[in-house]
């Protein structure tokens, strides 16, 4: 029994990391149908900037704030310099641009920062909490809390605010959105800034668990992307459930089947789900008007 509990806690820890990263994909996808493959780099920037600001002697909360603000600025710049100039290009081209941006940000990060691994101290110490004979680190609770807050924030944003609905309208039909008076350029800028900020927040929260380095973005983004696909791209609820489900799948496979094949098993399950439900667990049904 304590074994099962430990597997579950491990799955939730890892799943919360995936969910937090997956949530970052939501806004940009909702505004433009673009899967932003540079999302992992926002996570990396959040972690790395915090680490270096903290090493320079700033208190941790201030370092984290600076990192989130700087990453949001990087997100806005990315939109202005790369996405906006390619306006009118098909979605696939824009996705390829995000891959290019991801490689570029990594290159800059290894020059500006360094090539070593770094870690932040855990926010509430390293003393494990005991739950039914299993243990969990307090930092995992921070990550889960962060994921929940971002989830609630996004849900309120998309369903209760005018700006959030403007984002959804822009994604539905850019021209129609412009005609009803939505400033679509502003919506795009806002969505990149917010996505980058969410990514950076994820980076700050997960760095004490996953450690960080200039190249950690890709692997986090891939897992986050898989989680978002599983849950349904664009739906905050999907990102949350998909992330936790992916983490639990991996942990239970590693615990009961084989640690060698845990990634393979997780991806086979994802494929099976997508086969039955191509939109993911909570995805929107695609509607094409003829």
């Amino acid at each position, binding site marked *: 029994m304590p074994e099962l509990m430990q597997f579950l806690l491990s799955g939730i820890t890892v799943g919360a990391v995936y969910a937090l990263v997956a949530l970052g994909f939501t806004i940009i996808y909702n505004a433009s149908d673009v899967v932003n493959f540079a999302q992992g780099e926002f996570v990396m920037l959040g972690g790395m900037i915090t680490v270096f600001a903290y090493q320079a002697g700033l208190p941790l909360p201030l370092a984290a704030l600076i990192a989130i603000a700087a990453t949001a600025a990087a997100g806005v710049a990315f939109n202005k310099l790369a996405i906006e100039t390619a306006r009118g290009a098909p979605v696939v081209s824009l996705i390829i641009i995000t891959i290019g941006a991801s490689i570029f940000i990594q290159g800059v990060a290894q020059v500006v920062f360094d090539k070593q691994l770094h870690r932040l101290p855990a926010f509430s110490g390293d003393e494990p909490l005991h739950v039914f004979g299993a243990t969990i680190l307090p930092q995992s609770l921070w990550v889960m809390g962060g994921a929940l807050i971002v989830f609630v924030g996004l849900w309120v944003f998309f369903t209760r605010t005018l700006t959030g609905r403007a984002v959804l309208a822009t994604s539905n039909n850019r021209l129609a959105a412009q005609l009803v008076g939505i400033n679509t350029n502003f919506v795009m800028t806002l969505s990149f800034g917010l996505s980058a900020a969410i990514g950076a927040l994820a980076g700050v929260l997960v760095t004490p668990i*996953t450690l960080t380095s200039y190249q950690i973005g890709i692997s986090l983004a891939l897992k986050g992307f898989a989680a978002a696909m599983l849950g349904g791209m664009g739906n905050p609820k999907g990102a949350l459930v998909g992330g936790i489900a992916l983490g639990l799948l991996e942990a239970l496979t*590693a615990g009961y089947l084989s640690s060698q094949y845990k990634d393979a098993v997780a991806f086979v399950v994802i494929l099976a789900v997508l086969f039955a439900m191509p939109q993911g667990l909570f995805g929107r049904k695609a509607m094409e008007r003829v």
Partner: protein
Amino acid sequence: MRKLLTGVALASLASLSFASFAWADIKLGATVSETGPASFLGDPEAKTLKLMVEQINASGGIKGEKIKLFLYDDGGDPNKARTFATRLVEDDGVVAIIGGTTTGTSMSVMPVVEDAKIPFISLAGAIEIIDPVRPNTFKTPHTDRMACEKIFDDMKKRGYTKIGMLSGTDGFGASMRAQCLAVAPNYGITILADENYGPKDADMTPQLTNIRGKSDIQAVLSPGFGQGPAIVTRNYAQLGITLPLYQSHGVASNGFIELAGAKASEGVRLPGTALLVGELLADNDPQKPVVMAYKTAFEKATGTPVSTFGGYAHDALRIFVDAVSRSKSTKPADIRDAIEKTSGLVGTTGTVTMSPKDHLGLDLGSFRMLEIKNGGWVLVK
């Protein structure tokens, strides 16, 4: 102003051409992974090569001849490494090549140098590079098989015969796992649990829970590289496992203690090189002056702490310089013969004595068993 600039440019041009007429430089090639996924290995290697070539030239070169270093960054890509090796041989006309930061890049440089008969000193770990022995290929780092042997030797001394393993699935972890499984019977060690984790995983408590569940296990070995071993060590403490934990030489650096945390890594043992514990070596240890000289010079020039990997490049260059000063000419074939006759050369990794059958030249004694105590290293006697 423009006139002055032109004057300066002409003067420097003149002095340059004068320089190249005055000395027949010894051309040394290198391809290391200064950027890319292996950059934390390749970066200190590149810095070491540049620094030492500068030092050697400042103190008069080898037998009065200066070394000219052709250094390329292959970014950890075996294809690029091969292209650069070809360029070094065909365009730059080097007499020897140092490099191949990773096993992948080294294996792709190997056919080029074996065709061109240019001596090649690799900086990568795997045993495949020197086993079977190829005439022109040498290497400086210990093999992972030796790391396994050193660890099992220490386990046997402490009376542990039943162990669990938790290995990374990256190239380093997978290769060391295979070597450890192969040599374990020689030391009477049985491996009761053989678990794995992905190189980017964030939590290894399920695997460790399973290892903990097997009551016969007396010690745990974790071959791996990068962040994985640090997370394993932290999870080990989180689960409150009290069995002795062994890590590999892949994480033998102060950075590891920092990442894993001093408290979680207390009591962890791993095989490392003398470079890591320069200050702790006995004063009569032959490696002490070599290690301390390199450490001081590197840390002064770069402002970053020395790493084992930079030490591999240091040893490779020392072997090259030693061979050139013993050989009768600077022809690649003569340098190759001289490298093979290297004997008793003290480097940062160990004392190197090569032979036609052994292109590594290190024995188990050059590995030091280290233990982490109070956030620092101590030598295990």
